């Protein structure tokens, strides 16, 4: 039908046409709607996509920037290859190792091409094979972690740690390879260096032990030998051995110190210390060396140095001794002087300044810069024969630097040197190091001919603020002494006999103090002494009524207590060390068991309860560490084993050793060679306090369980007498009785000897009287007897006969005073019933003590003998024994004991 022909169209046809058009229209409208909907979605989509793309692009750019930064700055060699082995990107560090200008030159190159063309030494054969294998295996490295890691060394000896990482996509598709090579050469070198350092430290620790162990034996044996009553020549030999041993120890310590410095193990450990102890120690150590050298040694210590400071006193002592030793070594003639003062910068701190001056050879200006370097010694020809490791000043400088101090030297060749050390210190107690009590009440008479001594004494007294007057003649001294204007008189010791010869015994209230050179024999055994060098601390002590060696704070006596109830175990695999240790501990009167190994020690402790154990560190089979661990393990069933103090004995004194032993179960450690002072400190610290007793000469013992007061007797220093006889009042009283009884006899014997002009016998009797008088504290009588004895020895009969009557008269007066106190003594004296076993044991020990000249044991055992009650027949024999003891006639005392021990008593 032709729709344009409307003439013949029917209604039905028209309807159909309309319907078709309608449907067509619907479809078109629907299509249009669909298109419009799609347009709307597309527009929104486009906007969204643009925003997303921008965001993703920004993120991508950021990541690319980070990647670029990483690749530029990363020190590792990073290669990224695709699965066709083509290089995509890499780190800038590749340029240096492959010797190329730009890493981008490699883009597009295959792995093999890079290896061939830029091989250099980076790609070893093994590395190439591994990378190729991963490419061939499509990422299968044969490794569960899918990373192949190994270390290779290239031809330039660089060490690389290589990681070959296959790149696997999410869908398990192999996409390429990461090759990351880290240069670990410096790390390896550092590890080697650290290993060497550790080896060096281990070597040093071993050597320290190996060298110190025999040194401990040498020095310990020497110390024990000195305690024996050796002949003079033998004593000198032993002294030389000690000296040599100590020198060797010094050199060893120097070497260990320098090693500590090199390995950074040197540590400064500040602690509170008394300055006077430090200075006294230094001077006491250096004095013998100065004495040997014939140099004049002067000391000037400012009185206002604070008494207690805080610093590493051990190292400060080392510093001063190092410099002083050098001064003595390099000074042939003239002097060495030590000046110390405090430069206080605030109330709580200041600089301790030490100046050491000598008149020695001097140091060239050019060499002054180098003197603090290691192993440096100058003018080897001139200084040939001077011992030393060449490390002393280097160590000193390091120590001073470690304390934030400074050290410098001034010198002139041929004239001498001045070394100045400045050490910042914290002030703990600002009280002056030396001051004289009631100094205004003192006035000192000085008679000294030695200019250096006069100068030192006057300078010292000036600093102490004490008045003085110097005389230059015997007459002037006598006049001063008898004027009673002076509290003290300082007299050159060699002038003593001159005075005595001129005036005899002089009555005076002035206390005479002899000024003696160190090592001099003294004319009077019981008078006060000031030994050179003269300086403020001992001078103040003497003027305050103490002995010159008293320090202001509590003095560290070597043996400060006894512990007869304590039981100790000492473990060491070397018998000599066991003997040395036991010998050094003998004065403490402890019961000591010795074992030579860790296993034996454990067996011993399993069946014995010890109060303290000394355990050597290094022993074969079972060492101290292992033995201690086993003992502590036993503590799980018995708390005693967990708590018993165990002290490590070790020759290893490197840094950190204390902490090492504490961690290993020890409670403390004692270095070898054993220092007596340190031993005392350790024993004092770890022996239970209830087992510690005062030393015999301080102990008060009363059979009535009461502390008795000592009698006051005119002419007798009873306190001194008590201390000299063991410290027990009862025993002293008994001694006085014996002295009294014997005194009268002595008067008769002396007179008889003089009447028969038997000077030799006279000397014998007067000597015995001198000794007995000194022993009970009759100081004046003892001094007078001493003078008469000297006169006898000098065959000065005129003096004897002129003075003997006065002497005997004075002696009789003294005996009278004692006699008036006797009834008090006799009334108080009580005896307990005899215990034969105790008596026999005590006599046996006493005999050994007499034979060993062990004064302390003699006194102690004598006291015990007194406590044991005797019947009348034995009392007389015991009295006789005590008299022999008092007179120093030990051979007779031994015979007396033999008689007593034969059982002639009921």
């Amino acid at each position, binding site marked *: 039908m032709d729709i344009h022909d409307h003439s013949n169209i029917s209604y039905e046809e028209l309807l159909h046409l309309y319907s078709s058009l309608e*449907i067509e229209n*619907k*479809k078109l409208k*629907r299509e249009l*709607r*669909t298109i419009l*909907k*799609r347009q*709307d*979605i*597309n*527009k*929104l*989509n*486009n*906007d*969204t*996509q*643009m*925003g*997303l793309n*921008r*965001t*993703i692009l920004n*993120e991508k750019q950021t990541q690319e920037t980070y990647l670029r930064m990483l690749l530029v700055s990363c020190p590792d060699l990073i290669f990224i290859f695709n699965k066709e082995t083509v290089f995509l990107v890499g780190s800038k560090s590749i340029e240096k190792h492959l010797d190329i200008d730009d890493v981008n030159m490699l883009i597009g190159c295959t792995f093999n091409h890079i290896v061939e063309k830029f091989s250099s030494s980076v790609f070893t054969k093994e590395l190439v094979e591994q990378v190729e294998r991963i490419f061939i295996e499509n990422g299968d490295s044969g490794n569960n972690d899918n990373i192949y890691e190994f270390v290779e060394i290239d031809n330039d000896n660089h060490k690389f740690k290589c990681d070959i990482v296959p790149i696997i996509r*999410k*869908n398990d598709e192999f996409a390429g390879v990461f090759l990351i090579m880290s240069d670990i050469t410096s790390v390896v070198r550092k590890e080697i260096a650290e290993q060497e350092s550790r080896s060096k430290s281990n070597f040093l620790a071993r050597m320290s032990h190996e060298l110190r162990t025999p040194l401990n034996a040498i020095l310990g044996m020497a110390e024990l030998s000195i305690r024996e009553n050796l002949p003079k020549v033998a004593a000198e030999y032993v002294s030389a051995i000690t000296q040599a041993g100590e020198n060797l120890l010094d050199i060893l310590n120097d070497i260990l110190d320098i090693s500590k410095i090199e390995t950074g193990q040197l540590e400064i450990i500040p602690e509170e210390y008394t300055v006077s102890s430090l200075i006294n120690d230094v001077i006491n150590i250096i004095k013998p060396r100065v004495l040997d050298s014939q140099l004049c040694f002067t000391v000037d210590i400012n009185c206002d140095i604070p008494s207690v400071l805080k610093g590493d006193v051990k190292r400060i002592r080392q510093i001063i001794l190092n410099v002083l030793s050098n001064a003595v070594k390099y000074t042939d003639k003239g002097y060495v002087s030590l000046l110390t003062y405090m430069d206080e910068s605030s109330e709580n701190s200041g600089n301790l300044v030490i100046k050491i001056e000598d008149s020695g050879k001097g140091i060239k200006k050019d060499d002054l810069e180098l003197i603090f370097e290691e192993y440096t010694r100058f003018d080897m020809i001139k200084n040939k024969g001077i011992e030393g490791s060449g490390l002393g000043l280097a160590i000193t400088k390091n120590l001073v630097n470690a304390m934030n101090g400074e050290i410098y030297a001034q010198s002139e060749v041929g004239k001498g040197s001045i070394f100045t050390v400045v050490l910042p210190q914290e002030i703990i107690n600002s009280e002056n190091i030396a001051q004289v009590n009631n100094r205004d009440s003192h006035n000192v008479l000085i008679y000294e001919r030695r200019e250096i001594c006069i100068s030192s004494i006057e300078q010292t007294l000036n600093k102490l603020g004490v008045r003085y007057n110097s005389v230059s003649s015997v007459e002037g001294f006598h006049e001063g002494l008898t004027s009673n204007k002076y509290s003290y008189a300082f007299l050159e010791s060699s002038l003593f006999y001159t005075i005595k010869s001129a005036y005899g015994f002089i009555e005076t209230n002035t206390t005479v103090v002899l000024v003696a050179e160190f090592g001099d024999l003294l004319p009077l055994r019981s008078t006060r002494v000031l030994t050179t060098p003269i300086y403020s601390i001992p001078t103040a002590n003497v003027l305050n009524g103490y002995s010159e060696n008293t320090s202001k704070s509590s003095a560290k006596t070597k043996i400060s207590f006894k512990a007869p109830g304590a039981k100790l175990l000492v473990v060491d695999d070397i018998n000599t060390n066991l003997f040395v240790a036991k010998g050094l501990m003998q004065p403490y009167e402890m019961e000591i068991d010795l074992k030579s190994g860790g296993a034996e020690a454990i067996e011993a402790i399993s069946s014995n309860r010890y109060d303290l154990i000394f355990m050597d560190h290094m022993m074969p089979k079972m060492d101290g560490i292992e033995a201690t661990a086993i003992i502590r393990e036993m503590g799980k069933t018995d708390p005693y084993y967990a708590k018993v103090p165990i002290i490590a004995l070790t020759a290893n004194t490197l840094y950190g050793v204390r902490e090492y032993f504490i961690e290993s179960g020890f409670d403390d450690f004692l270095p070898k060679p054993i220092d007596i002072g340190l031993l005392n400190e350790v024993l004092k610290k770890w022996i239970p306090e209830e087992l510690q007793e005062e030393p015999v000469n301080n102990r008060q013992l009363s059979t009535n369980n009461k502390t008795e007061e000592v009698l006051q007797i005119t002419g007798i220093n009873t306190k001194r007498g008590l201390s000299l006889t063991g410290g027990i009042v009862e025993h002293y009283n008994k001694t006085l009785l014996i002295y009294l009884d014997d005194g009268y006899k002595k008067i008769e014997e002396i007179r008889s000897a003089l009447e028969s002009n038997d000077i030799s016998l006279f000397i014998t009797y007067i000597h015995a009287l001198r000794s007995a008088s000194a022993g009970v504290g009759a100081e004046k009588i003892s001094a007078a007897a001493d003078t008469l004895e000297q006169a006898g020895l000098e065959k000065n009969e005129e003096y004897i006969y002129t003075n003997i009557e006065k002497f005997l008269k004075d002696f009789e007066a003294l005996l009278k005073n004692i006699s008036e106190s006797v009834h008090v003594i006799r009334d108080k004296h009580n005896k307990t019933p005899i215990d034969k076993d105790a008596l026999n044991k005590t006599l046996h020990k006493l005999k050994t003590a007499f034979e060993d000249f062990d004064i302390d044991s003699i006194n102690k055992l004598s006291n015990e003998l007194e406590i044991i009650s005797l019947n009348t027949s034995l009392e007389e024999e015991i009295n006789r024994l005590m008299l022999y003891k008092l007179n120093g006639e030990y051979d007779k005392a031994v015979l007396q004991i033999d008689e007593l021990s034969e059982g002639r008593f009921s």
Partner: protein
Amino acid sequence: MLKCASVYTCEIDDHVIALDEIKSQLDDKIKLLKNTVGVIMCNPEFIYGETVEYICAGLPFDVIGITTSSQSTNDEIGELTLTLFVMTSDDIQFVTGVTESLITDIYESAKKAYETASAGHSGLPQLLLVFPPFLLEQFSGDLLVEAWDRILPGVPQFGSLAIDDTATFSECSTIYNGKDSRDTMPFILCYGNIKPRFIIATLDEVSGISLRAEVTKAKDNIVYEINNIVTRDFFMESLGIPESMISIPLLIDSPSANNYDGIPVIREQSSVTAEGAGVFGGNIEVGSKLLLLKADDESILSTSLQGLMKLNNMEDVNGALIFSCVSRRIMLMGVNKSMAELQLVKDTVKPDIPFMMGGSGGEICPTSVRDGVAFNRNHEYSMVILVV
């Protein structure tokens, strides 16, 4: 025993032809058993043309479903298509129902409808097929899932929110036996010998780019502020996207991370309120961090393929109902691959597995079923597959 078939027609205008096409395909593919139900998906044009009404009236079983933007079946893919997925069985009962308007109270409406539909059946169904309307400004798919979880605790829910082919989703409807609605929810209760299995394919969370964004004010599926900035302004600043952004998948890293089950929680903003708040397809907690996910053609198609491969590898499969988020297609449209996923599904699914796939406005599917208890979730930007 269960038998399935999927049939289609593109005839919008001629209802008779459309019904004939449906019926003849059904006759060819399937013999209806005692109990039968049909799931219908179609372009809204089929509703406007009253074709849906006519077809539903001409079939001897209940037909329920939703409008969609596109479909794929064993035989056809298209945008202007009506597809029907028919399930028939002797030992499975298919009970259909429809709620009243959900706008007032989702739970009460659903409960009332369930009670009406399930009267005469004891016990819980083995499966719930649900087809909610697209009313995100009133409620999100999460609230619907929660409501059904309360009514049918532990029962697997599978379904899709209605969608359409507009930019504003303003023409989508639910369909219940030929009757379309903007706010009611039809559903199918499956009782008996049915053993449903589920597959979820979604975007890879590893691809997330942090937006340095934290939700600072939100209620349910409405996000008012991000980083204390009004949501619209935030997205404009951070992404440079104008107000009405669509199809941007955001990975939600929420503080509570409930019911994670290894499936990332992805949300997309479907619209913006007048005040600038973002309306999302699911609830977002305050404190949640937002990451932008990669959603290009490669990621969409590869994840779809993974899901489809899982389907192919399953045994005893009678049929599969597949819903794919409309945003996946919109993203593909941006790269001129609008039909790519549809084609992929048609080409990949094994010929002996009857299936129907349609675009979804929100996918409802359990993340897992453990000890007979289903952990249901409302998904976005995902492809979910019901395997029966």
